[in-house]
């Protein structure tokens, strides 16, 4: 064996990965010819590299993964088509100077419109909150003689429906403008998962009483049918899973009439099911998608609760509980039916 004063270390790997300059390559190769130790190290590294490269067997992608990804992209498409206006943001994001100018312009318009609208509205803030004022021609004199001076300053704004119901009384165009924006924001995209979670917590807090208390699934279904639900409510029999029906009620979930029924499991675990006419496409992004028996499940975690939504024909079903998330999902898997 030839002895060398210097061995190549990192250069060996660079030779292996073809990262040497031609001159260095020649030098390292020449060295390898005469240095047994470096040659053996080179071969050892090459052995490891080739094994990883040729003998590593990648696993195939689970079939449902690709489906889930495509479904997630579908949801993303629907979400972005609903917020198509935001493409302007993207356009602006690519042009920072324009974006700043645009924002400045918007700010200027807002400030100007505030001052412009403020003058005619000098009276209308009170107008919008106090319907009796338009009937009084001399607003300045009335407060002085009014026995209840706090009335004009007391806003009656909290509920938007009140505002909009009063707007037709006034000839001024401002009140409808003011009332429109918040109501539109509220009704256009209801946060259904949060609402469902709130219903669950309210039930547990005793704020949502059951209209019919029964353990009988058929009796519960009959109740919903008599209450005029336009669809057959399928109340689950979860006896096999050790969940006992407690009863149900006709509920209102945002704008939907919902069949709301409750189960109790081991250790006082509460499971709430709601069924309402609607589409899972109304749900906002952020769900974890799962699939079982060809049915897509939209799983949300809200306030420590697990919510599993799925579609059954025209009905959206949701199971909610604070038990182990996977248990909720498995219960949904067990009871969902492809329609």
């Amino acid at each position: 064996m030839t002895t060398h004063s210097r061995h190549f270390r990192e250069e060996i790997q660079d030779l292996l990965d073809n990262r040497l300059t031609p001159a260095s390559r020649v030098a390292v190769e020449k060295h390898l010819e005469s240095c047994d130790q470096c040659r053996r190290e080179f071969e050892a590294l090459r052995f490891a590299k080739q094994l990883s490269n040729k003998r590593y067997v990648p696993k195939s992608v689970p079939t449902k993964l690709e489906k889930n990804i495509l479904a997630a992209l579908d949801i993303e498409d629907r979400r972005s088509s609903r917020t198509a206006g935001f493409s302007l943001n993207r356009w602006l994001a690519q042009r920072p100077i324009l974006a700043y100018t645009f924002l400045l312009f918007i700010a200027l318009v807002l400030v100007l419109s505030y001052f412009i609208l403020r003058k005619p509205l000098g009276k209308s803030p009170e107008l919008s909150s106090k319907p009796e004022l338009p009937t009084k021609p001399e607003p300045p004199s009335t407060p002085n003689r009014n026995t209840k001076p706090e009335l004009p300053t007391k806003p009656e704004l909290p509920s938007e429906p009140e505002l909009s119901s009063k707007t037709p009384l006034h000839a001024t165009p401002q009140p409808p403008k003011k009332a429109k924006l918040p109501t539109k924001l509220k009704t256009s995209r209801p946060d259904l998962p949060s609402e469902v979670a709130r219903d669950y917590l309210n039930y547990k807090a005793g704020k949502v009483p059951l209209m019919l208390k029964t353990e009988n699934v058929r009796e519960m279904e009959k109740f919903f049918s008599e209450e005029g639900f336009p669809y057959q409510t399928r109340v689950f029999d979860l006896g096999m899973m050790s969940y006992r029906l407690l009863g149900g009620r006709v509920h209102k979930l945002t704008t939907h009439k919902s069949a709301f029924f409750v189960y109790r499991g081991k250790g006082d675990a509460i499971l709430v099911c709601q069924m309402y006419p609607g589409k899972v496409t109304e749900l906002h992004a952020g769900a974890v998608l799962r699939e079982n028996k060809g049915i897509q499940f939209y799983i949300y975690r809200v306030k420590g609760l697990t919510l599993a939504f799925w579609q059954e024909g025209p009905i959206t079903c949701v199971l909610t509980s604070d038990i182990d998330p996977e248990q909720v999902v498995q219960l949904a898997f067990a009871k969902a039916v492809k329609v």
Partner: protein
Amino acid sequence: MADSPIIGAENKRAQFEATALPFMRSIYNTALCLTRRPEDASDLVQETYLRAYRTFPNFTPGTNCKAWLFTIMYSVFVNKYRKEQREPESVSIEELEEKFHRSVAAAESDPYLTQGGAMAAEVNQALNRLPESFRLAVLLVDVEEMSYEEAAAVLNCPIGTLRSRLFRARKLLFLELEPYARRKGYS
């Protein structure tokens, strides 16, 4: 004013599917090596593709889409999954070097033969036993055949760091696999 190439909605979807989906197997396998659990790997891949789709208009056509997807996946993994993972025990560099040189010196012959269809399971197991940073270096460079520059960009580390991780990873793999290969008559 020149318009930048903003992809239309229908085009975006079609282009994304054509450009990014073919790498799903690579992404999934690396995700599996990172998370070690098929369910977590699936979640990681789904999250990666969703994020990639959202930012697809920023992707420059013609550049390395696979490296771009790996970068997104590694970022999601680091931020979302790594906290839950148990870090593998650290490797003593001196001990590794010593073992490697001893083993190389004791080897009866060279070069080592890597032909034949066997050893796949052993290679997979040996790769999975590597510490995370070493495993990733091997996966990206030796399995996915990325350049040092691309792999370093994915892992957000200097090229020198990647090189030394790769060097050590290969030595560890050699130590794991060479005795087995010799027993089976491949070397």
